[in-house]
């Protein structure tokens, strides 16, 4: 407690000194604010001072303020902060006077003289002095605490984003992610359309051609080929349907769906799944699609020979990592599969990033909040 008190006192003292520098700055730079050219320089300087103050508040008062403010706010802060600092200077002056007085009286007490120095001191004399001394100590301490608190509040008021700003930011974030979710849904529909038209439909047309040829030529070998082609088409249809929505998610849970995904991949996939409780279905769906799309990308583009999937929990977040030993160079472009994933993850209030240097390896990571 004493250490804390000493830190606070020192902080207020340092604040008094910075206030002196700030007074100079404010007074000298105020005329420059009128000129548009120098105005920005002044504002930037104010920001530097605000940064120093933030560091002081953090160092001495354990009060963290983020750098989330603009230069105008910094200047406004500085104007008022100077007053608080000067008040601190006054308190420190009182403190200094008190210390000097205490030293003088202390010497007289030790040498046995009366307070003030004339004659021998009695207990009553000293008691009379002790009362105002205690009051003075109390007042000084209150002054220190008060200035420290004032410093804190000023910084919070001017340098922290207001509740309104936070709400506005949240609204604009929600607005954007909502639009992006719609976009992501459309992208997926496009992909399904492609899967159906370029995959299944082509196969069926080819099958029709095969059967047509069989009929026209009477070649039974063609019928056999057609029969095989039917199997292939059915397999592809199953793949497309699975791609639209893996029903295993509903029926057997995320771990089973991921296992099944790994089994169906054409290159070896290791799944490490260490969640003890299954996530909500909506969250499980996001995780599943992050994994599925990343695996598809890795198989298609990276030339990887091995893929690892890791789903684990860190505190109140679920971390999903998909790594491959391929050639890297994956980019999150808004139209690509990874862009769609970034939007899905953002809509679930998560973070998404792709680390894929040229030459590899690639790690796709999504961090999603969970209850």
């Amino acid at each position, binding site marked *: 407690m004493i250490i804390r008190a000493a830190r606070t006192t020192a902080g207020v003292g340092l604040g008094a000194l910075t206030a002196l520098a700030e007074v100079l700055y404010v007074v000298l730079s105020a005329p420059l604010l009128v000129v548009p050219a120098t105005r920005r320089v002044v504002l930037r300087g104010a920001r530097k001072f605000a940064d120093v103050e933030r560091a002081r508040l953090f160092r001495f008062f354990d009060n963290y303020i983020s750098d989330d403010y603009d230069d105008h706010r910094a200047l406004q802060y500085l104007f008022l902060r100077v007053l608080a600092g000067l008040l601190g200077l006054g308190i420190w002056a009182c403190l200094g006077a008190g210390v000097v007085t205490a030293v003088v009286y202390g010497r007289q007490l030790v040498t046995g003289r009366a307070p003030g120095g004339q004659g021998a001191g009695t207990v009553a004399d000293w008691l009379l002095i002790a009362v105002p001394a205690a009051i003075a100590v109390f007042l000084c301490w209150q002054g220190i605490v008060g200035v420290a608190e004032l410093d804190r509040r000023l910084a919070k008021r001017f340098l922290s984003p207001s509740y309104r700003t936070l709400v506005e930011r949240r609204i604009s974030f929600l607005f954007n992610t909502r639009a992006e979710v719609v976009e992501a849904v459309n992208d997926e529909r496009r992909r399904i359309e492609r899967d159906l038209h370029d995959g299944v*439909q082509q196969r069926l*047309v080819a099958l029709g051609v095969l059967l047509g040829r069989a009929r026209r030529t009477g070649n039974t070998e063609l019928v056999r080929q057609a029969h095989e082609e039917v199997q292939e088409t059915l397999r592809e249809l199953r793949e497309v349907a699975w791609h639209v929505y893996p029903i295993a998610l509903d029926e057997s849970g995320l771990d089973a769906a991921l296992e099944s995904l790994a089994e169906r991949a054409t290159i070896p996939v290791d799944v490490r799944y260490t969640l003890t409780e299954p996530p909500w279905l909506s969250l499980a769906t996001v995780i599943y699609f992050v994994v599925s799309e990343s695996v598809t990308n890795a198989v298609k583009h990276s030339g990887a020979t091995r893929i690892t999937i890791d789903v684990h929990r860190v505190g109140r977040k679920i971390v999903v990592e998909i790594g491959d030993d391929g050639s890297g160079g994956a980019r999150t472009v808004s139209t690509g599969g990874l862009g769609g994933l970034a939007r899905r993850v953002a809509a679930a209030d998560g973070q998404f990033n792709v680390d894929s240097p040229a030459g590899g390896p690639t790690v796709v990571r999504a961090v999603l909040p969970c209850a």
Partner: protein
Amino acid sequence: MRVILAEDSTLLREGLVRLLAEEGHDVVAAVGDGEALIEATAQARPDVVVTDVRMPPTHTDEGLRAALEIREKWPETGVLVLSQYVEKRYAAKLISADGGRVGYLLKDRVAQVGEFLDALERVAEGGAAFDPEVVRRLVARTSHEDALSRLTQRERDVLEKMAQGHTNASIAQLLYISQSSVEKHANAIFDKLDLPQAAGYSRRVLAVLRYLGS
């Protein structure tokens, strides 16, 4: 006849190559995208090209653009466009170019091998071949509804078959009516749609389609 195929699905391309070979046609080239189609056409100068609409690299309308370019550069080459779905815009673009030697079929129609080969032959011979589905859409959603509403049901049937590129003889066969009554219906249609009398099979089809698709 000498044919060039452009289709990006290897499976279907191979199937079509075999089919055409079995039918005695000479497939001089089989390619997988629009640019290769144009190159091959410039070199081999086939009687007819068959092209898918959606091909690499953008998977949008490469085939159609290649087809239009071929029509412009080598008008004597027939062009048969295969599309995954009916796109009125595509049909209108193909129609608005002059002359016959053009076809637009739904890809599904290829599975009806007979119809596909029939359409191919018509296009190669200078005629037109439009998918019944395409024609139905054009007829159903034309901007000249007043004129069309003056047609009787029978005349609509005849118009539809005409637009698909059928001759009067084959329309008569398809609708189980005599050829002379087909001619009578056709004349009534031209009258009602204010189209000038025109001799020649492909010009008739194109006139009708242009009118419907505009």
